[in-house]
């Protein structure tokens, strides 16, 4: 709107005499209106430029070099790092691990979070107590979570295997078996994040107008039907947010597998990299084996992978959530 008016007025005032001269104060106030907003948001962009954009660009530059940490200057190799990366078995293993852990953690996490939110949304005694209770795992330090779960999933003396044995099952090699290790790590992630996501979803549920539910009730819809046909579609923006953030988080899982490794401080992700994630591989390459150029290439590929997955997720979630609620467009 404003632009239209401004354009129109500019056209309306022919410029043989030029625009009227403005006083200094007027110009100052004009500049204030024009530039102040940028000034106010500048701190973010400056900081983002320094710690976000610059590293991003420098990493892309670095990924074209064969440079080690203590090399003063590396050799330019073009895209050789990327070529090598795509032929690197360990990279594909790490990518597979990442996706496996990501799926094992994100999918149950979002589903359970929505269900927990639905439960919390019913009439409960002491609702705040329940909500805080759900959030508690999120407050616990990640390192503490890692150490405790690594103990629980210990192969020889761990509690989980002890329980399994009491129940008559075989012991599971949580460290050695690839799928078991992913499951253990995903459990760690889910334990920590489900409550957090549940609260976000709960907030969105609370924002759904009562009238819609009442209207559905009058139409004869029962609780389940109302949940599927009313609540879920209206949760769409929130679900997209939850899915996108947990995608970004899920593809960057680092601390959990690092602390899960039996070898203290190891970045190997298990004896044969069976639970090494991409971020862990990147970290190992950069700061342990110190191939900075190669690590930069990994970082960039991870960046692209996350963008692709986030877009796919976004589209999928939109598709899924719109069915049944076309009319709100």
């Amino acid at each position, binding site marked *: 709107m404003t632009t239209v008016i401004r354009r129109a007025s500019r056209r309306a005032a022919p410029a043989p005499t030029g625009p009227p001269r403005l006083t200094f104060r007027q110009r100052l106030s004009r500049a204030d209106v024009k530039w102040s907003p940028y000034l106010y948001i500048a*701190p*973010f962009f400056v900081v983002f430029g320094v710690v976000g954009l610059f590293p991003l660009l420098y990493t892309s530059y670095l990924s074209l070099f064969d440079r080690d940490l*203590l090399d003063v200057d590396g050799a330019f190799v073009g895209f050789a790092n990327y070529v090598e990366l795509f032929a690197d078995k360990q990279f594909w293993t790490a990518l597979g691990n990442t996706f496996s852990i990501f799926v094992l953690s994100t999918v149950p996490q979002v589903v359970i979070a929505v269900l927990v939110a639905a439960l919390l949304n019913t009439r409960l005694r002491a609702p705040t107590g329940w909500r805080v209770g759900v959030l508690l795992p999120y407050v616990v330090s990640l390192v503490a979570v890692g150490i405790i779960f690594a103990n629980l999933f210990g*192969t020889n003396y761990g509690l989980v295997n002890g329980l399994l044995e009491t129940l008559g099952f075989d012991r599971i*090699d949580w460290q*050695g078996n690839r799928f078991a290790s992913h499951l253990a790590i995903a459990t760690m992630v889910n334990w920590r994040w489900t409550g957090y996501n549940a609260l976000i979803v709960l907030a969105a549920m609370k924002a759904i107008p009562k009238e819609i539910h009442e209207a559905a009730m009058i139409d004869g819809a029962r609780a389940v039907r109302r949940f599927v046909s009313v609540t879920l579609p209206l949760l769409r923006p929130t679900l997209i947010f939850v899915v996108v953030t947990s995608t970004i988080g899920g593809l960057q899982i680092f601390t959990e597998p690092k602390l899960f490794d039996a*070898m203290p401080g*190891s970045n190997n992700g298990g*004896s*044969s990299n069976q639970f090494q994630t991409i971020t862990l591989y990147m970290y190992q390459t950069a700061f342990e084996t110190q191939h900075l150029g190669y690590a930069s290439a990994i970082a960039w590929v991870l960046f692209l992978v996350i963008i692709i997955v986030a877009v796919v997720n976004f589209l999928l979630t939109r598709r899924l959530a719109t069915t049944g609620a076309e009319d709100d467009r």
Partner: protein
Amino acid sequence: MRRNQRRVLAGAIALAAAVGLTACGGSNADSGSESGQIELTIGTFTEFGYEDLLPAYEKTHPNIKITHHKTGQGGPYHQQLLTKLAANSGLEDVVAIEEGHLPDVIDKPQLFNNLADIGPKDVKPDRWLDWKYQAGTAKDGTWIGYGTDIGPLAMCYRTDLLAAAGLPTDEASVKAMLESWDTYFAAGAKYVQATGKPWFDSTSQIFNAMQNQLDTGYIGKDDKLAIESNKDIKRNWDKVTAAGNSGQTAKLVAFSPEWNNGFKQGAFATKTCPSWMLGVVKEQAGPDNAGKWAVTDAFPGGGGNWGGSYLAVPKQSKHPKEAAALAAWLTAPEQQIKAFEKTGNFPSQVDALTAPELLNSTNPYFGDVKVGTLFAAQAEKVGKAQYKGPGDGKIQENATSPALQAVEQGKSPEEGWQQAVDAAKKIVK
């Protein structure tokens, strides 16, 4: 609205990161010399036992002021060390470098001052055990670090478990059992047969000790990968994995929670024991197992060393001469004996190894054995310094150790070997 919130959040995070970043960079306090005072900084990790020594040095050198930067864990410390070496700023004037991390910098002598040039002239290599001095010297002759402590290897064993398995426990018989790796594994086979329980904690702990006894490490003198060309490495691999697959390994990764538990459960009967390991054994096995563990001055295949550090003066130091003087003083036998009394770090200086304070020290947990005398004897048994080229430590940590663990988890020894070779190639590429 939501977008705004997220932006604010991102901004806050970015800001926090920026603050954190500047906080990290601020440690490089410039050495002010207004009043003729020289400020020196020294960086160490875990416990070096220098807390009382540094004020004493300041007292005798009134123009020197020392700031001590202590890091709790060795891993993060060395990572910082390498990053600051690469950035060419931010390092202390005197830095401690652990033996296992030394190969990472030993081929970059240009980043360090040559202690032979800047150090006090009366400090000669013969202050240290020869192998300790040799390992701290770069190939081009640059003397990178003064030795602080060492970790001479002996063997710890559970007398009660040995007796229960019908194995002899008197010292002479145990020493005969620890004559060579073959006799050690043969005794292990007997132990497994009698009890069905494992003999040692993990194959990588044994393999690393065997590897350290070879003339050259994973990297040859030409700084090329020798894991395949050096046939002794594969021979050791075959022996260890054979013993492991016959039930001698408890499959417990060293320093993991499960390994700690293994000490309490008596999951293994023997343990390769550098001097500093006695404290670990005592802590993990706990009072319930007091008097059951013993240690003797014998080790399969001679001797060996695991651990110990150096003090170096990086090129970025503004007061290299003063820093070298401090490092030389700290690594003098008298000071290292004091550090030994405080922390148990075993000194690497020839004169310190004959000091009565050391020779008469005992360890009540291990049946009041004269540990000082015992480990001094073991230190003498360490042969030549093994040449460790760049990447050697990383190969042990990220190639062979995980591969041995993979064999314990079910891979065949040949598959495991291939994994180790592939990983080693990647590390040194």
